[in-house]
Structure formats: C-alpha cells, structure tokens
C-alpha cells in the first residue's frame, strides 16, 4: 500500500485534510479547530488538555460513536468527526 500525501476527513460537516499518521486531535488543531466539545452541564468549551488519553477532555464523536478521545485515535481517510 502506497502512503498518500494527505487524507480527507470532515469535522462538523466541513471538509479538511491532514497528514497520514496524525491523531484526530492533531489534525483538528492543525486545521484551527480548537473547540472539540462542550461540557454537559454548563456548556463550557473544551479542547485537548493532557494529550495522552488520561483527562478525557478531548471527547468527540467519531463515525457516530460518542465519547472518543481525539488524542488517542489515528485519523483515517473519510472519518466523520463531530463535536459533542
């Protein structure tokens, strides 16, 4: 399999591209999407905090599956990422 130069994904419906091998979080930050979700009770914005899977602040919806840690999952071509 040949490595491609960039892969396409969407965040909240808008198209973006990223370098293969990036995490979802890295790809989102790189495309200037800092706010990944808002909190349940007070609707406060959240972004990457620890970046290593411990704090659960960077939760997003990945292909309809909620509560996924953006900092741990490698971005794959065609992924539909949504803020939650």
């Amino acid at each position, binding site marked *: 399999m040949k490595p491609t130069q960039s892969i396409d994904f969407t965040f909240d419906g808008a198209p973006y591209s990223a370098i293969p091998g990036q995490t979802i979080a890295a790809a989102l930050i790189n495309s200037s999407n800092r706010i990944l979700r808002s909190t*349940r009770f007070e609707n406060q914005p959240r972004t990457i905090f620890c970046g290593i899977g411990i704090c659960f602040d960077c939760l997003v919806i990945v292909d309809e599956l*909620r*509560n996924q840690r953006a900092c741990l999952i490698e971005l794959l071509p065609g992924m539909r990422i949504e803020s939650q």
Partner: protein
Amino acid sequence: MKNPDAIVIGAGIVGASCALALSGAGMKVLILDRGSIASGTTSAGEGNILVSDKEPGPELELALRSRGLWFEMAEEHGRAFELEAKGGIVVARHDDKSLMELARSQEQHGVTVQRLHAKELHELEPYLHPDISSGVFYPQDAQCQPMLATAYAIKRVIGRGGEFVPHALVTAITSDRGRISGLKTGSEEYSTPIVVNATGTWAGDIASLAGSFLPIAPRRGFILVTTPVPQYIFHKVYDSDYVSNVASSNADLQTSTVVEGTKSGTILIGASRERVGFSREVNIEILRRLAAQATSLFPVLRNVELLRFYSGFRPYAPDHLPIIGEDSNLQGLWHSAGHEGAGIGLAPGSAALITQQITGAKTFMDARPFSPSRFQMGAS
C-alpha cells in the same frame, strides 16, 4: 453513648431510615456499621422507589405508604437526595395479556396506571424499538440517590442527639432472661433494651449471634453503566418479564431488561438475578446478555460505549417479603431486613412500621405478614 435507648446495626438505607424514625419518636439512637455509610447493598442498586413491580398484597401496601413517606421527607428537606418522580414504563415485548392483568389488579389496590397504545408509548420514549407497541405507564415510580439519602437520614439522627459509629463490627449480643441487654463490638460494650438488626443480606449473621435464625440469602445482580450521552431514555423502562423474575424463587440466572438514564447522563442497564452466594466473580456472559437485551429495547444504545459495571447482593427471603418485627426467640431484638431489590423504596415504610411496633403505637397496616416468626416457629 454507652446506654442508648436503641441500637440500629447497619448504616444502609433501611437502618438509617429506622434510626430516623426511632429518633423521631424521641429515642436516643446509636447506629453501628462494620463498614461505613451505605457500604453494602444500598450503594449497589439504582435507587428505585417502585410500585409498578409489585403484585397486590402486603408488599404493595407497604410500598405505597413508603413512597408517600419518601416524598414527605423530600418536601421537608428539598433536594438533599435527588428524589425524582420520573415514572416507570413497563413494556410488553410480545403478548401483553399478563401485563394488562397485573395493571388492572394494581389499579384496584391504589396504584395509578395508564395503559399506553403504540403512539403514546413512543411519544413518551421516542428511542424505544418501533416494534414494541404496548405498555403501561406508572407515574408513581420514582428514583433517588440512595447514598445521599442514607447520609441525610444519619445526619438528622445525629442532629437529634443520636450517634453513628462506623467500622464497628458487632461481635456479641448479650441477653438476660430472654431479653436483650446489649451488645459488644471489637472495642466497646453497650447496654440497651432494643437492638434493630438492619444488616440486609448479612442479617442472618446477627440473628445467629443472638442465638436465633433468619433465612436471608444473597441474590446477586449486575448493573452496566454507559458513558454519558444525551438524554435517550426519559423514564425507568423495563420489560414485563421483570415482574415475574422478581417474584421467582429460581436460583439459576435470570435476566430481564431494565434501562434508565441518570442526571449525570449515564444510562444504567440491569437486571440479573442469581443465587451464587457472595461470589464477586464476573460472568461476562451475563454482562453480554444485559447489553443485548437493552439494545433490543433501545437500538440507539448500540452506538453507546460502556463505562463500567457493578454488582451487589440483594437480601433474599424465601417468600420475597421483607422481615420486619420482633424476633421470636429474643425479646428486644428486632429485624428489618430481607427487602431484596426493593430496600430503597420500602425503607421509610419499614421504619415507620417497626417504630410503631417498638413504641406500642397503632401500626398503619397489618404487620403480621412481615413477622420474623414465619421463619422462626418452633425455634428454641
């Protein structure tokens, strides 16, 4: 406090409620627990206060009264324990004949029921599987946060001059000429004319210490907890098999579907029942079955991940009725235990009933069906 008017053993919801009622009758009450507040079955359930799962009879009468007491307590003290009349919906997956018969008989005994056609059902629970077309709504079904409720009751007992001693394992019960005289813990000795055994699944141990007997056994249950999600489930929703499982005496594994959301956004999924002693060994097959049943009721849950699960031991009495009353073998020893999966709901009613008996007041209902003597006749 070395000479309390009464000692309650057990700081679960049943013991705490009992201590609250006794202190309300003017008694100085000491509460002992071998662990801490709500460290047994109280913290292993969903905080259910249900009338929907009870067939007409003494337990339903107690449950209705008890529900009233829960809401009286909430009126006095606001939101201390997250009491919520969320309502229960029982759905029939196939034939709804037995569910409708049960609803009719409950209605004749003071339960508010509302039969639901498919359209009404799906308006109340929009994520319910579209094939399910019949159910009954029970607006009286409620839920609370049982650990908070227990702590709240104990705090009020202390406010009335009572005391709570955690990590106090009762090692001996002392008596004098057929009457209780006190008890011993690892480090202390107390004298008292009244001991209430509210140790739930472990109540048989206390009865044995007193030279008596209670046939209470653990009936294990697992509950799955999902990650927090938007509100998909608006009531306590369960399938009509649940009622027959609760009432059954089978020792083998039984599962029925019970699904409900919580204020924090997680969804709780039950319920399994099996008699395997006090084993905590995880049976992955049970967890799988609970998850599969829940997704068949609410397909939206297929895309929701689980966060964790927990297990607990319901105090099971052979006839499924709680044991509330004075011991047949030792005067002054009282029991309030064996509430199985209904301890949260039945706690204030049981407390009122036992307090009325202890103080010689008129009881609000016939207490005889709950008497320990039904298991102790002929005991010496």
